[in-house]
C-alpha cells in the first residue's frame, strides 16, 4: 500500500448531523474523517462530494461544532477490526467496545479499542512452510470461548501467497506476527491475528455459494414445522408494534441451532438490549451447556444513539458474521430493526435534499436492502469445509401497513416471510406469526425436501402441506359460522373450525416464557404433529353444536398440558392418556363410519 498525504479540511456548514467540509486534497466516497470539536475528535463519513466540498455525516451529536473547525481525512473507509476476542463483546455501531467506556453516560469522541490486545492466546499452527495460500485460508487457530478461532490470510490480500514461516505452538498476543507470507514478487508480508475490513464490502473468500438445503432448527414450532428456515437462509419478520417481534427474535437467538449469534440492535429500545446483556451471561446454551453470551456478539446502536452510526451498525454486524463464516461456522445474524436502518438512510437523504422516493425514502432503498440480504448464505470454503450466515431481520412497518416501502423491498430480498398479525397478538396467540400469510420459499426447494425426508420422515412435507390446508379450512369454516350464525351451519362446520383451533393452540402457539414449552426439538415437533393429525383424522359425533366448543376445549387443554411437560415424562404420558380417553368419548366407531359411507 502506498503512502499518501492525508487530506485536511475546514467545516463550512452544519445542518443537524450533515456537515459540509472544504477539503484541500483528494477525498473518496465513504472515506472516514474526524471533525475537531474543541479538542475532541468526532468520527464522520463522506457521503457526497461536490467539487472541493465533501458532505459528511457525523456519527455523533454535532452540538458545538463551529464553522472553520478542522477536519482530518483518514484515507480509508469505515472498517471493523477482526481477530480473536470479538465474541461476547458489546459493541456500538462502529465497533467500539461499550464495556471499556467510562462513566454511565456516553461521551462523544470516546472511541475504544474493539479487541483486548494485551490478552494472550494459545496459538496452534495449521499451515506449513511452503503451502500456497489465498485470502481466507487458515494459517492457524486459537481457542476462543472453547471454539476454534481460525487465524486466516487477511481478506485484503489479493492473489496467491507462499507461506515462508508460521510461528510454533505457544502463547501470543493478537498483534504479534504469527506468520510470514511471500507474495508473487517474493516480498515478505507479515501476518498477525488481527485484520481490518471495510464493512460496506462483502467478504467473498470462499469457493462457492450453493442453494441452501439444511434445515436450521429454531425450536419454534410455527417456524420449524410450517415455514422452515435453512442454514444460510434469509427471513424477515414484519409486524406492527406490540405484536411480539422482539420477543420472537430473542427466542430464536436463544434456541436456534447456531455456533455463533450476532445481534444487531439497530435503533431499537435500550431496555431490550439490556435484557440481552442481563440474560445471556446467565442463560445456558441448550446444546453445549455453556453460557449463551460466550457464543454471542452484540452490536448495540439503540434509538437514542447517533443516527448515522445506526446505518453503519448493520454492516458492522454482517462483516463480523462473514468473518466467522470464513472459519467454517454456522452464524445466526439478527437485526432488529431494519426499518430503523432505512429511516437513518432517509434522514440523510432528506438532509442532502435528494429527490425522495415513496414515503420520502431514498430511491435506491430496494437495491440497498437486497444487496445487504445477499451477503447471507451457505458457502463451501476453499478447504472444502462449510459455513453459513442465516439472517433474520425484523421490519417495523409504519402504521402496521405491509404495503410500505421497507416491507415491500425486503419481501423481494428475503426468502422467508413471517408476518406477525395484530389480531393474533390481540388475542394473545403468541408467537403471532400468521400461519396463512407467512411463507417459506425454502420448503419448495427439492434440496430441502430431500433433507427433511431423510432427517424427519418420508411423508413430512406432505403432512406440513396438509396441516396448512387444514388451517385454511378452519378459517373458512369460522367465516361461514360468523356469516350464517352458529345454528345456520351444519355441525361439521363447527368441527372443522375447532379442529383448526386444535392445530393453532397446540402447534402454532408456544409460550416463550415457559421453561419447557419455549423450545421444541424437531423430534418432539414431529410427535406432536402426528398426534394432532390423528385428532384431525378422527371422526367425531355431536348431537348439537353447543357440545363442540367445550369438548374441543378439553382436547386442547390436555394437549397444552403435554406441551408444558417434559417430552415423554410421566406427566406428559399422563396427559396423553387422558387425551386418548377424551377422544374415545366422541369418536365415531369404525363400523358406524362404514355404515354411513354405505348409506351415502
Amino acid at each position, binding site marked *: 500500500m502506498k503512502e499518501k498525504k492525508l487530506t485536511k479540511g475546514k467545516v*463550512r*456548514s*452544519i*445542518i443537524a448531523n450533515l456537515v*459540509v467540509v472544504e477539503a484541500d486534497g483528494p477525498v473518496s466516497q465513504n472515506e472516514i474523517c474526524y471533525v475537531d470539536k474543541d479538542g475532541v475528535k468526532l468520527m464522520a463519513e463522506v457521503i457526497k462530494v461536490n467539487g472541493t466540498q465533501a458532505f459528511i455525516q457525523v456519527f455523533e*451529536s*454535532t*452540538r458545538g*461544532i*463551529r*464553522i*472553520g473547525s478542522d477536519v482530518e481525512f483518514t484515507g480509508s473507509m469505515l472498517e471493523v477490526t477482526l481477530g480473536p476476542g470479538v465474541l461476547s463483546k458489546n459493541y456500538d455501531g462502529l465497533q467500539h467496545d*461499550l464495556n471499556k*467506556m467510562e*462513566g*454511565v*453516560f*456516553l*461521551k*462523544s469522541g470516546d472511541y475504544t479499542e474493539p479487541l483486548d490486545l494485551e490478552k494472550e492466546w494459545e496459538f496452534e499452527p495449521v499451515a506449513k512452510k511452503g503451502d500456497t495460500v489465498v485470502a481466507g485460508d487458515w494459517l492457524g487457530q486459537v481457542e476462543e470461548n472453547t471454539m476454534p478461532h481460525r487465524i486466516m490470510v487477511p481478506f485484503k490480500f489479493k492473489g496467491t501467497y507462499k507461506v515462508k514461516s508460521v510461528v510454533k505452538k505457544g502463547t501470543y498476543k493478537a498483534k504479534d506476527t504469527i506468520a510470514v507470507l511471500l507474495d508473487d514478487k517474493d516480498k515478505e508480508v507479515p501476518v498477525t491475528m488481527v485484520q481490518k475490513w471495510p464493512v460496506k464490502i462483502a467478504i467473498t473468500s470462499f469457493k462457492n455459494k450453493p442453494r441452501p438445503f439444511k434445515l436450521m432448527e429454531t425450536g419454534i414450532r410455527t417456524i420449524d414445522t410450517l415455514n422452515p428456515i435453512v442454514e444460510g437462509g434469509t427471513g424477515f419478520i414484519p409486524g*406492527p*408494534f*406490540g405484536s411480539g417481534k422482539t420477543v420472537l427474535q430473542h427466542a430464536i437467538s436463544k434456541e436456534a441451532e447456531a455456533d455463533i449469534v450476532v445481534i444487531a440492535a439497530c*435503533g431499537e*429500545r*435500550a*431496555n431490550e*438490549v*439490556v435484557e440481552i*446483556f442481563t440474560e445471556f451471561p446467565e442463560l445456558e446454551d441448550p446444546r453445549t451447556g455453556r453460557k449463551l453470551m460466550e457464543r454471542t456478539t452484540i452490536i*448495540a446502536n*439503540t*434509538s*437514542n*444513539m447517533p443516527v448515522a452510526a445506526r446505518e453503519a451498525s448493520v454492516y458492522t454486524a454482517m462483516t463480523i458474521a462473514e468473518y466467522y463464516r470464513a472459519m467454517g461456522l454456522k452464524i445466526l445474524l439478527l437485526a432488529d*430493526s431494519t426499518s*430503523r436502518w432505512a*429511516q437513518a438512510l*432517509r*434522514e440523510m437523504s*432528506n438532509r442532502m435534499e435528494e429527490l*425522495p422516493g415513496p*414515503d*420520502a425514502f431514498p430511491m435506491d432503498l430496494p437495491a440497498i436492502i437486497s444487496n445487504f440480504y445477499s451477503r447471507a448464505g451457505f458457502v463451501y470454503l476453499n478447504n472444502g469445509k462449510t459455513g453459513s450466515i442465516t439472517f433474520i431481520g425484523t421490519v417495523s412497518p*409504519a*402504521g402496521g401497513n405491509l404495503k410500505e416501502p421497507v416491507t415491500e423491498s425486503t419481501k423481494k430480498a428475503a426468502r422467508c416471510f413471517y408476518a406477525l398479525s395484530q389480531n393474533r397478538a*390481540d388475542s*394473545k396467540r403468541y408467537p403471532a406469526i400468521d400461519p396463512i400469510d407467512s411463507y417459506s420459499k425454502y420448503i419448495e426447494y427439492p434440496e430441502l425436501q430431500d433433507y427433511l425426508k431423510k432427517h424427519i420422515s418420508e411423508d413430512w412435507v406432505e403432512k406440513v402441506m396438509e396441516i396448512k390446508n387444514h388451517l385454511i379450512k378452519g378459517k373458512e369454516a369460522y367465516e361461514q359460522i*360468523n356469516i350464517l*350464525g*352458529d*345454528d345456520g351451519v351444519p355441525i361439521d362446520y363447527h368441527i372443522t373450525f375447532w379442529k383448526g383451533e386444535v392445530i393453532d393452540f397446540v402447534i402454532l402457539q408456544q409460550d416463550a*416464557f415457559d421453561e419447557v414449552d419455549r423450545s421444541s426439538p424437531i423430534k418432539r415437533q414431529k410427535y406432536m404433529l402426528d398426534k394432532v393429525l390423528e385428532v384431525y383424522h378422527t371422526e367425531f359425533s355431536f348431537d348439537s353444536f*353447543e357440545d363442540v*366448543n*367445550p369438548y374441543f*376445549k*378439553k382436547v386442547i387443554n390436555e394437549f397444552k*398440558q403435554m406441551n*408444558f411437560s417434559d417430552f415423554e415424562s410421566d406427566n406428559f404420558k399422563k396427559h396423553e392418556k387422558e387425551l386418548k380417553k377424551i377422544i374415545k368419548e366422541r369418536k365415531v366407531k369404525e363400523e358406524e363410519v362404514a355404515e354411513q359411507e354405505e348409506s351415502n
Partner: protein
Amino acid sequence: METKAFQKIYTKITQITKATCSLNAEGVGYEELASVNGRLAQVVKIQGENVTLQVFGGTEDIPTNAEVVFFGRPPTIKVGEDLAGRFFNAFGEPIDGGPEVEGEEREIGGPSVNPVRRMQPSELIATGIAGIDLNNTLVSGQKIPFFADPDQPYNQVMAMVALRAKADKIILGGMGLTNDDYLYYKNVFDNAGALDRIVSFVNTTEDPPVERLLVPDMALTAAEYFAVDKNESVLVLLTDMTLFADALSIVSNRMDQIPSKDSMPGSLYSDLAKIYEKAVQFPEGGSITIVAVTTLSGGDITHAIPDNTGYITEGQLFLRRDTDIGKVIVDPFRSLSRLKQLVIGKKTREDHPQVMNAAVRLNADAVNARTKLENGFDLTDYDERTLGFAKEYSRELLAIDVNIDVDAMLDTGWKLFGKYFEKAEVGIKEDMTKKYWPGKDD
C-alpha cells in the same frame, strides 16, 4: 438571561420567517443559544457566514435591525434540591412568583446512557388501577404513553397515577396544556400535599408553540439530576407529546425540509426516541420512568406520531368508556406493558401471568359473543357466561376508579373464573388451579 459585557451584538437580520430568522455571524457553534431582541433563540443551521436561528417565542414584531447576541453555549438549566415544589416555564424560569433556583448549571438534552451501564428494570410501580397493575404492570425505568382521544380524561388519570405511584420525585412536563388543565394539576398536587416532591415545567396554550420543544429536555435534565446525583426514583409525566411533535413539524416546515408521512419531519422517530430513551434504571438505584400522553385523532394509531411512539415506548395504555358499566376502563386488548414480564409472577404472586392471560382470553371470547349478539344470532350457554364474566371483570377490575393491591386483583380474578367457568375452559396450568381455584377441589 442577561448578556455579558464583551459579547458582540449583531444588528443585521437578513431573513425572517414565522419561526426562524437568519443573519451573518462568525464563530457560532451548532445548537448554541442566542437572544433576538430579548427573545430566546437557538442555532439550527449554519451555512458559511449565514446562521439560522429558531426563535422560540415566535418572530412577530422582530425587525431586521433586532439586536442578536450569542451566548456561546446550548440551553441549560440550574439544578438543585430547590427545584422541588416549583413551577417553571419552558426556559426554566419560575412562573410561580418564587425566586430563581440556585444550583449547578447543566446543558439540557445531554448524552445518552451507555447501554451496558443500564440495569434491567425490575421494580414494580403500583398504581392501584387493575387495568394497569394486573394487565399492564409498570416497571421503574419504563417509558409508556397513554394513547387517548382528546375527550378522554387522561390528565385526571395521569394525576392519579402520579399521586399513587411510590416515586421520590414527580416531574411534570406540560406541553400545550390548557390553562385549565395546568391549574387542575396544580390544585390536585396542592390538595394531596404532595407539592414538595413535584417539579413542573409548563408550556400552556397561551405560550408560543415552538417553546414546547424545550420542555421534555428541561424536565428530563432535572430528572437526571435527581436520579443520578440523588439516587432517587423519578416519575416524569409528559403531556401532550402530540403537541410536541406538531411543534417539530412547524420548525422543519419553516426550514423547507421534505416532510415524510403525515407531514412530520423524517427524523421524528429519532427525535422522539431521544426523549423517551431517557427512561432508565441506573446501577446506583436511581431511576427515571416516563408516563406520557399522546393524543390521537379519532383513535387512529396509524398516524405517524402514535405509530413512531409505539415503536419507541415499552407498551401503550388505552382508555375506553365501557358502556356496559358506564365507566372509563383501561382497554385490556389494546393496552400493553412490555416490561411486565420482568415483575409479574416474580415481584407479584406466582399466578399473576396465568390469571392475566386467561382473563384477557376469556374477554376476547366475550367480544366474539357480543358480535354474534349484534348480528342477531343466538348465543350459546358459553357465550352468555363470557358476557357475564366480561361485565363483572370490567366493573370489579378494569374500571379506573378501582383501587386495590395486586393480590386482591388476583383473588378477584379467581373468584370470577370460579363463578362463570369450568377449569378446562379457563385453561390454566394444573398446579395453579389446584392451589387457587375457589371452592372445593374435585
